[in-house]
């Protein structure tokens, strides 16, 4: 019996030849990540564990991205705790806005070349699944688990069953990774992949750009998955070129690997997708949302704040204005993306359209700062969750969509199909 890519990565990290779903393994971790919301708790627990040093100062990454730049004094204290920890431990990789390269962790780490195919990455953030787009095993954990991984350089994992998600057909012009993953969530539900690996494959995935692959693996956790993963190929290699120095061996699934379920997705006539409040699996085609008037549009986050996302939004917003009564907030996910968007003239397009363009931060995505919603307000957002109160008041509403739908909606003041606006 063959192995899936996820099983191969975990077997290797556990020093075993083969593993089966259900096996509980002790695995070595290649990278451990925490941010300004979760890391302060990890730091506290590390102290209580009696661990004076982290296992490897080059493999523990600290990112201040959620409340940074500090939104209030308590947040400033948290960010300082992360900064002090990074300094005291001599961490090689510490990122904070205003201190050179920085940004939303899951956009930043791959961009900085810190994620290699075959890696086991654990992060104190649920969207650590993002790194599967590079053929790595990435999974989220809580602060105490992460503290243990920082102390020991290993963690325990149960080998997940794998789901094979196969995408075929010729998607239309406006269909991107966000539409594919929202469509998938609509079918699987938010509990459809609990404890499982979601392996995305098929001709549509093979043609997909890295940015779209990141989006899909990012939201695998929205189906409850342990990890999302895509086999490395020429696109992956192209992305890694110039970013990573170390050698890596790309792993792929065997042709006789065992899957719990195979799902088939025909993308031929897929319309842009929108997740209605209050769940990422409450998904319908954009046409069903066309009557929904909105107050705010947010473009950014670890899901859709990459340069490719901003280019799509820029294409729609170029020479147009944000509708009266609507506010548009654009937040490039990283400093590098911000700079590239600046050089390409995209930030000018957004500013001309009337948008507020922000410093890279998670900000509004988790209801932290930088554009929260008041009671009764409705937003279209390119982020990943639309739970009750996620982006502000419990009586506000969030519709999740692609950057193209978000930009078109900002122009028309209601949820819109990109073709209603674009040339």
């Amino acid at each position: 019996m063959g192995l899936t890519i996820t099983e191969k990565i975990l077997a290797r990290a556990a020093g075993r030849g083969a593993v089966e779903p259900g096996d509980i393994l002790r695995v070595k971790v290649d990278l451990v990540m925490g941010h300004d919301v979760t890391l302060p708790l990890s730091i506290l627990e590390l102290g209580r564990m009696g661990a004076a040093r982290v296992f490897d100062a080059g493999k523990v990454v600290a990112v201040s991205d959620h409340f940074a730049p500090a939104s209030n004094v308590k947040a400033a204290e948290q960010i300082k705790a992360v900064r002090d920890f990074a300094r005291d431990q001599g961490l090689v990789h510490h990122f904070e806005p205003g201190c050179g390269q920085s940004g939303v962790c899951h956009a930043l780490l791959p961009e900085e070349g810190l994620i290699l195919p075959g890696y086991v990455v654990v992060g104190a953030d649920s969207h650590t699944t993002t790194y599967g787009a590079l053929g790595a095993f990435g999974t989220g954990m809580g602060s105490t688990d992460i503290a243990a991984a920082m102390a020991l350089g290993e963690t325990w994992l149960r080998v997940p069953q794998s789901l094979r998600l196969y995408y075929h057909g010729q998607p239309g012009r406006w269909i991107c990774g966000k539409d594919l993953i929202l469509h998938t969530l609509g079918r699987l539900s938010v509990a459809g992949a609990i404890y499982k690996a979601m392996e995305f494959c098929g001709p549509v995935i093979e043609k997909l750009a890295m940015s779209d692959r990141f989006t899909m693996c990012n939201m695998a956790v929205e189906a409850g998955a342990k990890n999302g993963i895509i086999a490395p190929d020429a696109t992956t290699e192209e992305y890694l070129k110039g970013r990573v120095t170390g050698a890596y061996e790309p792993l792929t699934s065997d042709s006789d690997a065992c899957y719990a379920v195979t799902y088939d997705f025909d993308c031929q006539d897929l319309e842009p997708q929108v997740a209605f409040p209050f769940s990422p699996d409450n998904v319908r085609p954009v046409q069903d949302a066309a009557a929904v008037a909105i107050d705010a549009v947010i473009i950014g986050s670890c899901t859709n704040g990459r340069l490719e996302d901003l280019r799509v939004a820029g294409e729609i917003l170029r020479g147009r204005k944000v509708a009266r009564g609507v506010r548009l907030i654009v937040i490039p996910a990283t400093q590098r993306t911000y700079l590239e968007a600046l050089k390409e003239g995209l930030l000018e397009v957004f500013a001309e359209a009337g948008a507020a363009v922000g410093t890279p931060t998670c900000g509004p995505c988790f209801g932290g700062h930088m554009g929260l919603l008041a009671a009764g307000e409705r937003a279209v957002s390119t982020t990943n969750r639309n739970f009750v109160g996620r982006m502000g008041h419990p009586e506000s509403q969030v519709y999740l969509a692609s950057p193209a739908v978000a930009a078109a909606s900002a122009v028309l003041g209601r949820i819109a199909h990109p073709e209603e606006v674009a040339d």
Partner: protein
Amino acid sequence: MKRLRGKAWRVGDNVDTDQIIAGRYLSLTDPEELGRHCFEGSYPHLAGGFGKGDIIVAGENFGCGSSREHAVIALKALGASCVIARSFARIFFRNCVNLGLLPLECPSGVAGIEAGDELSIDPAEGKVLNLTRGLAFHFGPWPPFLEEILAAGDLTTYVRRQLSQV
């Protein structure tokens, strides 16, 4: 692991960690403060009347979404002694084990417990007793490795012992 006793509070399916503790409170670190905002906006009646030792009884996928450990800290500070659910989201399940809040996967129990029922739980026996209705439910054993963490009380204690042996 000692016996637990408390009143049941029902919540629905797919209760996410944003509902347990909202993002805007994640710059708080004091457990008591986090506990005061637990279920704010989502289950306000529960936030008001919850007693020490009371028990959350949930549907599918409890604790989905964000990995925030603050959710478990807030539940503990609220007074919860354990959570019984049809199923758990995996990060939340780990966080519960790691912080010593018992996560009991017990679909039959969830079906046979109403809000306000008085429950008694014997973790060692794997038994939930509904004292109000005279019903008993069983939950499966945890994997041996998890038993070790639960027996230590929490993951921090478990790792501290491990490190001190090196």
